[in-house]
Structure formats: structure tokens, C-alpha cells
């Protein structure tokens, strides 16, 4: 289970990484904007992308749009991280077939529940790097 965390704020990436590690996810990668993330996705397969909406240069929505418009990346599950005020952004993300969204501020339990609803679970212990 390879997960890509995309946020311009390094402290948020570290926090989300920590939440995922505590939930049992081990194969985690990071990108600080949509451009970098798209390049990483073209070079490596990810099972999930967790992306912030508010990012300079390329917004999370534009990133999602470009991924959905790229055949090889169009089916990668996306979980968008947004603020309360981004209701229009959420609607736009739903149009772009986002798989889920989470509203900041959020607790680790909220992230775990959201991933569970999306059918994403950490690999079984001892299941090897691909186990899960």
C-alpha cells in the first residue's frame, strides 16, 4: 500500500505521515505541490493520494483534475484535505470523482475512519511489503 501525501506545509505532511504510521501504513511518500506529485505518480504507482486543497502554484483541485485527465493515473484513489470554507471546493472535487474528503482540523481517528470507509486498510503485520 503506497501512499502519497501532498501538502505545501511540511508540518502537515509530517503529521499525516505520523497518523498513517501509527495506523500501520509503512510505505509513505511526500510531495510539496501538485506538480511534484504528478511527476512522482508518473514514475511510481500509488494506491492512495492524500492531498491538501489549498496549495500555491497548483491547487489540490487542479492536481486532482490533471490526475483524472491522465489515463494511467485516472483511477488512483484521492482523499482531499480541506477547510470548512471550501464547500465549493468539495463540490468541485466530487465532480472530479474524488474518493473522499476530510475537513481540518481533524483527529487521527477521523482519518482512520475515513480510510476504512474508502476500503483502505494497512497491510497485515508480517504480510511483506505488498501484503494487504
Amino acid at each position, binding site marked *: 500500500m503506497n501512499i502519497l501525501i501532498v501538502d505545501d506545509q511540511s*508540518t502537515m505532511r509530517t503529521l499525516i505521515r*505520523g497518523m498513517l504510521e501509527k495506523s500501520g501504513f509503512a510505505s509513505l511518500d511526500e510531495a510539496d505541490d501538485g506538480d511534484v506529485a504528478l511527476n512522482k505518480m508518473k514514475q511510481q504507482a500509488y494506491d492512495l493520494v492524500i492531498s491538501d486543497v*489549498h496549495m500555491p502554484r497548483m491547487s489540490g483541485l487542479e492536481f486532482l483534475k490533471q490526475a483524472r485527465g491522465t489515463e494511467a493515473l485516472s483511477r488512483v484513489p484521492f482523499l482531499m484535505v480541506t*477547510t470548512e470554507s471550501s464547500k465549493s471546493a468539495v463540490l468541485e472535487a466530487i465532480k472530479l470523482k474524488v474518493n473522499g474528503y476530510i475537513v*481540518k482540523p481533524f*483527529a*487521527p481517528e477521523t482519518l482512520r475512519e475515513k480510510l476504512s470507509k474508502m476500503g483502505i486498510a494497512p497491510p497485515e503485520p508480517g504480510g511483506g511489503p505488498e501484503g494487504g
Partner: protein
Amino acid sequence: MQSEKQFVQHLRSRFLDAVNNHLTQIQMPDLGEYYETKESLLEMLSEEALYLQQKRDIILSEINAYLSGA
């Protein structure tokens, strides 16, 4: 020039983006477990302060530009 409503909505979005990122960190019930040492925790707080300061400055500059009719 954007309408007052559009501007307030934009500011609301900017404000919540800045504050909710920070709250996600500092409201974490077990925040200490995410940072193995006191130094790494202090480093995170220092980075958070910098992000918050940058976002405050952007919000202020946008308000000032709006008030000056830019």
C-alpha cells in the same frame, strides 16, 4: 475589483486554511508521541509559527490591497 461578498469569502477561506492547519497540530491529543524528542517538537512549533506568520502577512496584504482599491 471583486465584490465585498467575494472578498469576504476569499478571506474566510484564507483564514480557515491558516488557522485550521495550526489547530490540527496543536489540538492533537497525543502530539508528544509524534515527535520523539523535545527538540523535534520545538522545531515543528517553530516551523508552524513561520507558516502562520506567512499566512497572516498574506491575509493582511490582501486586506490592505482591497482597502486601497487595488
